[in-house]
């Protein structure tokens, strides 16, 4: 099983790379959706508790993360037909290098902690950290509001990974609550995106700098 988990995790890492590399919004969204699916399937492969209850929850999570959230964003874009290109503030190559640096740093940091969980899933901690940092990277690296939302989702994925894999004691219902929150958050963001589009007919956040001292 362990190998399986590691393969899955490496898929996640790959998705991060893709997200950095992709220059078109729909692609980016798909990548995030894929990432969501993979991440939420991790617990299944780890096989914490394979009770029907747990599996049901995992599946629900998977559907929300993998389908509903990306879909909502996608619809938001569709409603407001906008430029499909997204340019990172710092071009592609820089992003690639950033990704490599990210992986290395993540591995290094996670090597510092001595955790029981890590011993049987060497890739897990680095992946989580990479997801977090990657999300941050997307958030700060893009002027495009949608890309920033996607970055937020990526962060959430990372945290979810950390949470679900480590703590046995958190209840599913709680996770589900969290998930609902995230969902609602993304929904609201989508609404705001539409409004931004109507206001400025663009989603470039550099337009949103009027409120300052």
């Amino acid at each position, binding site marked *: 099983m362990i190998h399986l988990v590691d393969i899955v995790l490496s898929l996640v890492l790959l998705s991060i790379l893709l997200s950095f590399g992709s220059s078109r919004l729909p692609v980016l969204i798909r990548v995030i959706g894929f990432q969501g699916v993979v991440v939420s399937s991790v617990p299944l492969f780890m096989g914490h508790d394979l009770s029907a209850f747990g599996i049901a929850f995992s599946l629900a999570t998977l559907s929300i993360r993998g389908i509903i959230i990306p879909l909502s964003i996608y619809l938001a874009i569709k409603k407001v037909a906008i430029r499909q290109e997204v340019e990172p503030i710092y071009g592609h190559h820089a992003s690639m290098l950033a990704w490599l640096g990210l992986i290395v740093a993540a591995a290094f940091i996670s090597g510092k902690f001595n955790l029981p969980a890590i011993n049987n899933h060497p890739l897990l901690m680095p992946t989580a950290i990479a997801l977090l940092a990657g999300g941050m990277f997307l958030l700060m690296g893009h002027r495009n509001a949608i890309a920033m939302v996607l970055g*937020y989702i990526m962060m959430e994925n990372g945290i979810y990974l950390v949470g679900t894999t480590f703590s046995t004691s958190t209840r599913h219902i709680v996770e589900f609550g969290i998930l609902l*929150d995230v969902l609602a958050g993304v929904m609201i963001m989508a609404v705001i995106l539409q409004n931004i589009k109507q206001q400025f007919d663009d989603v470039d956040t550099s337009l949103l700098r009027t409120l300052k001292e």
Partner: protein
Amino acid sequence: MVEIVFLIPFLTGIVAFFLPRTSGRVLLVLTGAAHLVLSLILWTGWPEPVFPAYFAVTPEGLLSLIVISLLFFLISIYTTAYLKKSDIRSENIFTGSMLLFLSTMTMVTLSDHIMVMWIAIEATTLASAPLIFTHRSAASLEATWKYVLVCSVGIALALLGSVLITLAMDIGGVDVPVSFSALTTAARQLDPLWLKAGFVFILVGYGTKMGLAPMHTWLPDAHGEAPSPASALLSGVLLNCAYLGIFKTHKIMVAAGLESFSGTILMVFGLMSILAAATFILKQTEYKRLLAYSSIENMGIIAFGTGIGGLGAYGAMLCLIHHSLIKSSLFLTSGNILLGFGSRLIEDTGSLVRRMPRTFVAFFCGFVGISGLPPFGIFIGEMLIIMGAFRNGHYVGAAIFILSLCVIFAGFANHALKISFEGYRTTVQMEESASMVWPQYVLLLTSLLLCFWIPDIFSRTITQAVTAGGGVF
């Protein structure tokens, strides 16, 4: 049946979305009243919640709860009058999200499970976002965008922090429910390193929500753009909720004997917030932003006091309560001013004393109270904090604290005097309806009363909360 306290507003909120204007307003006030009654009942006999794993009645929670429901009741009354005057499209959304906001905040005060707490706080963000966006202007849109995104990111970090704390449990090898109360009792066995990490993430996360510098950046925009009742709720109680999260975590740290660690961090952030507030208060041009920054300042004061512990913690608790009362009254008053002068800029206002005498009284009393002068409660709170700081030998901290307070006072007084007395081009009186003034009066009077006399049960609750948070007498 503790949960009912937040279930009722939840349901009514859902209902309110589909109601016409008038009945929506009525529902708002009714819910506020019902909520107040319920929380008072909750106060007298502490009943057991249905899901003890997730919810519990804690002293600090009760404190915030009572403040919240009182404030909400008064604000709802003000709101009805405010809505009559102001031009707000889609009013049902406004009232609905007000109620949802209330329910989520109540949930925060009652939640005991770490994750549930997180859920509730994130929910407050989501529920309050429509409130900020009420005016549908570009500026309000931007404010909402920043608010949602910055807070979500911050709170995501808080989630990570909560996860890390559970991790600390795993490593510490304790198997108790992941609730603050249980953790506080078992704090000693938790793994200190991960606990610290968890605290840090939670502090930054909820600190973002609470408005501690440098994560405070969303706050002035949101408070400035939201309609006044909403801003009153935001800075009056929302910040308290965020603080509650930090405070409970701090309790764990104290129980784990790490209060020097968490205390230092809290003090540093507190001072940073006060300094940041001073920076922007001095030359502020909009009075609502001014009030927002003053909220940041007060949150800084509270964090500082909590970090000090001892007397300071007690002072912080007092400041927390009184700040809610006074600041919300100030925001409501600012609503009157906005309606009267039709501008957010300070230089467009003036000679409030002649044009709206009753509003002036509320405004100036609020100013006096917020800048830490008697006979309002923040005075005693700040004094205790300073004394506590000296008592525990934080000379430098106290020095910075005092100096920046002086600067802030100078700046705030300057603006307040401008608004109240500066050039009266026209001395026509503006009409101010009673229901838009006496909520503020009630709030201020409450603060005044609490400065002199605190009911026994109340003070006992405060003391319990404080002693749990490392306060000693």
